[in-house]
């Protein structure tokens, strides 16, 4: 058995359960040492439980290839982020990678979303990313080597109803990855993002009733989960190999990219570069844009949530409203 990560040290946030735990276990399996971080909170961020992190650390130590220690800090505070990085340094004297998987959900339609729901989700996902990347980047820059992996989401990249907080935070992680890649690439450090698709505690939390509602309203293509055969190929362990591959020496030149990983599918995401362009050597009139934008830029694109046909909407051709 090859152990390409032998002797190296990693911090995996949110690795007590789900995708994070699979990433931590695969790192251990390939010889790496892991700080298994997980405060063991509920899906909404409440409560705490030392069990999940301790259990995964024990599983890694029991396998006996890499070593693991448990950590209960929250990524939502700068002290928590620093502390888990420090724990890796204290244990193993180095830091080869930080993988930020930790996350919570507080879904709500934006017009009902509270400030608290917004703040909590942004704090764990996005500021949590800064809280670990900042201290990690200092060490990685000095040692001229390192890996940063942020977990983004299809919700951020493509948008998902009821997830203004989560979708914004997840897209923000991709943006942070792109900037960290440019800040740190010259020092031999890479930063990449994973947009996972997996059947976990987090996705289980979307209630069947809301899946049904969405399906009826034509919003999300959502059959009730128990009927989906696709989920059988979407275990959280399927996300681990690509994530861990990015930690290996082979991936030294893969930097600033976003990968969708969903079951056995691995995709490179398209960069958000200009797709179609119109140009004028001067300032546009609104009337010119009125003619050119629909016919040139928008041709063949669709509205992800079009207004219902019975809604009286200024601008919509009357024939279409009937």
């Amino acid at each position, binding site marked *: 058995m090859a152990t390409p990560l032998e002797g190296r040290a990693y911090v995996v946030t949110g690795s007590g359960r789900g995708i994070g735990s699979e990433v931590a276990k695969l790192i251990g399996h390939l010889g790496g040492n892991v700080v298994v971080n997980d405060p063991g909170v509920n899906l909404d961020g409440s409560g705490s439980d030392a069990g999940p992190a301790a259990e995964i650390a024990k599983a890694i130590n029991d396998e006996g290839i890499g070593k693991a220690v448990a950590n209960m800090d929250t990524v939502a505070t700068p002290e928590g982020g620093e502390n888990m990085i420090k724990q890796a340094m204290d244990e193993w004297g180095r830091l080869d990678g930080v993988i930020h998987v930790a996350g919570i959900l507080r879904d709500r339609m934006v017009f009902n979303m509270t400030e608290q729901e*917004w703040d909590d989700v942004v704090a764990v996902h996005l500021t949590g990313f800064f809280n670990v990347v900042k201290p990690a980047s200092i060490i990685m820059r000095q040692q001229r080597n390192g890996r940063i992996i942020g977990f983004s989401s299809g919700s951020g990249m*493509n948008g998902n109803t009821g997830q203004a907080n989560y979708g914004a935070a997840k897209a923000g992680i991709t943006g942070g990855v792109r900037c960290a890649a440019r800040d740190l*690439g010259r020092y031999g450090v890479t930063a990449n993002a994973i947009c996972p698709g997996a059947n976990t505690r987090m996705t289980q939390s979307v209630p069947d009733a809301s899946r049904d509602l969405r399906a009826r309203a034509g919003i999300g293509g959502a059959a009730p989960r128990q009927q989906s055969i696709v989920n059988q190929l979407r275990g959280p362990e399927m996300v681990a190999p690509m994530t861990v591959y990015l930690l290996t020496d082979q991936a030294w030149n893969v*930097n600033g990219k976003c990968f969708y990983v969903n079951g056995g599918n691995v995709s490179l995401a398209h960069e958000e570069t200009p797709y179609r362009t119109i140009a004028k050597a001067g300032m546009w009139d609104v009337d010119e844009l009125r003619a050119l934008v629909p016919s040139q830029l928008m041709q063949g694109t669709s509205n992800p949530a*079009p207004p219902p046909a019975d809604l009286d909407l200024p601008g919509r051709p009357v024939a279409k409203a009937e």
Partner: protein
Amino acid sequence: MGALDGKVAVVTGSGRGIGAGIAKLFAKEGAKVVVNDPGVNVDGSGGDAGPAQTVVNEIKSAGGEAVANTDSVAEAAGGENMIKQAVDAYGRIDILVNVAGILRDRMIFNMTQEEWDAVIAVHLKGHFNTVKPAAVLMRQQRNGRIINFSSTSGIIGNTGQFNYGAAKSAIAGLTRVLAKDLGRYGITSNAIAPGAATRMTQSVPDSARQLRSQAGIASNAAQPVQESQYVGLREPEMVAPMVAFLASDDAWNINGQVFNVAGGTVSLAHYPVAMRTVFKPGLWTMEELDDAVQNVLMKDINNPAPPRDDVEVPGRDVAARPLA
């Protein structure tokens, strides 16, 4: 007859730069405008009622209607207040344009918590703080336009802007969710990634531009600002027409998109969909992934900041790359 006759708009950060251009064009096209700007410095410090009032005065002297507002979008109360001011002054809110922003550039390994928090607060939380109260009203009236400001720094990436790039990419993500949450109520949400020569871009010091160009980091930022031949074609008011079009009734079915607007160039940004895919009906091994990544997914794809030649990078000299 203007494209925005009878509409009521709130434009954040419209005391200067791109925002001011939008507020003035909106008024010219017939909209009544709340000109929001606390008149802070580029880093968010200070405060000055002058810029917002100056734009209001210009709009009024050209025969338009506008009121000034100096609330901060970084506070929930500030966001609510400027939406409320539109309703109090003009009875409704049809259009929300979120332009307000600050910069605190720093390499990630030197960035302070305060620099992170301040930029996230104004850009990202600032968008939520105005969108939330506006969405409540727009949903009730079954009509509305939300136009957010993202940036290529976020959707493509930029050195020294971990905070700003994360916030701006998050705004693009937020916009795509808003499109889905609000589309069925006749509301559209879109984002602009602008390019313009403004006070904000002037703040990137020439010495930093030269350093970047010497280090081969960002070739597009190599020229000193004052020598750029593009300045005259990148005036901030050139971003405004596309924003005005998206705010008009004609754009009722354009939703959830990001547009790059710089000077006379308007682009629809590529959706971040899968570009190349490899598939295996089961768990990948490291060896299989190495083959698939090197030879398919990443084939001819650049590293935006490759390690310097003098950095000893494990893996750089791996000869045993299958098929490569």
